[in-house]
């Protein structure tokens, strides 16, 4: 992110090749491999945001993912469905390597995000997580002001001297407008984010990813703690963001997967059973296990 354009614009293109252009002084400053710079070279050859090959994952002795090979397309919403314990959250958390904070995780296979294998030794976790944002099941705004929550990402990824007050203000307004919180919160930016309603908290958690201009947004059951109206609001928000961001959403709620996703992946016991366009998966499932799950015979 250039120092002059901090948080001023979000992607407005469907073309993956156009997403990552400019130089990135920040990552060069950190002296690590520049994750985002490699992407434009590779992305010409792929239309996929996430490509995994034989991804396996163990928590200690327990194998949570088995030979997961999927291609998740760029710029659409992909839903991950399946019964509890099928590995969908684990898979999601692999995509920005958040699950490595538990010490006993072993991973095999590869995950390419926009053409770059994120398990390569030269990948910086910091840059990876900057470009792959994640929204958690329970809204988890930090116990600081609303304003500081939104600019948190900018603050940690920029040098102090590069951040101008006006840029930050603009980034906050833009991000909050994007998630439709601006009208409600513009006079309350100094208030503590943890005092907001759950729906607002979850929208704020989405908003705080936006100033970093991520390529992907991962959502781990983002509506499971919300009531019906809040769920609708967040779903509308997701549909509004689709196209500019690749969104991968884990959900227990099959109706939700049907409403919001363009493609769906059905997982069972750590394996991918079926991956298809959402209508096809729900109307004409090819696999009997998928059909049984969708009809509610188990799960």
């Amino acid at each position, binding site marked *: 992110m250039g120092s002059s354009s901090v948080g001023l614009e979000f992607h407005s293109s469907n073309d993956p090749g156009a997403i990552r252009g400019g130089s990135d002084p920040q990552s060069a400053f950190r002296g690590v491999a520049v994750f985002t710079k490699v992407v434009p070279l590779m992305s010409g050859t792929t239309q996929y945001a996430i490509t995994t090959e034989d991804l396996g994952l163990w928590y200690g002795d327990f194998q949570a993912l088995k030979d997961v090979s999927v291609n998740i397309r760029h710029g659409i919403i992909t839903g991950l469905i399946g019964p509890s314990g099928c590995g969908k959250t684990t898979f999601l958390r692999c995509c920005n390597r*958040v699950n490595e*904070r538990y010490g006993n995780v072993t991973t095999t296979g590869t995950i390419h995000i926009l053409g770059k294998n994120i398990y390569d030794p030269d990948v910086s976790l*910091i840059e*990876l*997580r900057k470009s792959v944002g994640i929204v*958690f099941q329970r809204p988890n705004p930090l*116990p600081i002001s609303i304003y500081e929550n939104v600019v948190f990402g900018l603050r*940690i*990824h920029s040098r102090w001297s590069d951040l101008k007050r006006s840029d930050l203000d603009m980034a906050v307004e833009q991000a909050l407008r994007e998630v439709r919180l601006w009208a409600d919160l513009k006079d309350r930016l100094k208030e503590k984010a943890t005092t907001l309603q759950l729906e607002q908290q979850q929208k704020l958690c989405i908003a705080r990813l936006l100033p970093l201009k991520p390529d992907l947004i991962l959502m781990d059951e983002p509506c499971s703690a919300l009531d019906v109206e809040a769920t609708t609001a967040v779903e509308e928000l997701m549909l509004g963001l689709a196209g500019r961001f690749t969104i991968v959403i884990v959900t227990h709620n099959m109706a939700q997967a049907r409403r919001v996703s363009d493609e769906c992946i059905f997982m069972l016991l750590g394996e991918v059973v079926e991956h298809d366009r959402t209508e096809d998966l729900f109307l004409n499932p090819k696999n009997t296990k998928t059909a049984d799950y969708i009809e509610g015979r188990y799960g």
Partner: protein
Amino acid sequence: MWLTMPLLHRPKWKVVGEGLVEWLIRICGVSAVIFVFAIFFFVFWEAKGILFGEDRLDLWKFLTSEEWYPASESNPRYGASALIAGTASVTVLSMLIAVPFGLGAALFISEFCGPRLKEVLKITIELLAAIPSVVWGFIGITIMNQLVMRIFGAPIGLTVLNGAIILALMSVPIIVSIGEDALKAVPDSYREAAIGLGVTRWQMLYRVLLPAAKNGLLAAVLLGVGRAIGETMAVLMCTGHAVNNPFNTTFPFLHPLDSVRTLPATIAAELGETAQGSQHYQVLFVIGLLLFTITFVVNMTADLVVKGIKGK
């Protein structure tokens, strides 16, 4: 056919026994409160003669005069300010040493080290807390005394610095265990949120953990202070026990190589030598009241600060 009601009463001894046990537990519960008030009352009772009696102590003089000559035949003077300064100097210096070490150790144990090392460290630090204070006094008199003399060239090693180092070692376990609790109480979701946004470990520390745990960490420091103020035996042995004000108005404002005497050490050393009920005896109880008040305020503040986090 009629249904019969089962017997609804229980044997008398069961009912009575249960009530007894309940009362016993209730008494245990409130006993702590009773003891605190009883001790405060006792100390106050012993000191009341000189606080409110005919020949009462000039409190202003007591708090500001540096002249502590309680055993003088002709003109006993009871000025505790040098003793207060002694306690303050040792406490401040020991906290300057203990707080960075204690909080650093708490952070390391809670956030940076592996689970196995964590267990080892926690047990070791608890062991450190279990060493009796007189043993710490030994170490102060023998090892630390030599070290202070050799390193700083002081004529005598029983000084503020010596006492402060020993006190720091004694307060570190408290700061570590309370501080670690405070860090453990930071919800994991905050850590995940920050990791998800790509923080480094240091950013996590000063942007998320320290702000979120600041009340608990402050409480840890205050409990360490409380420990340092009240400590008697180790300080009595390590600081040289000379009535002396180590503060002065020029930089660095504190002479760490002076010998001092602290409030609790004075009580411990002199109470056995006084006649019960004498003026000197009563003044020592006034010192006791003073100490009691200080530690009470410090602990109370720590408690309120901790409640502050949980209330939100």
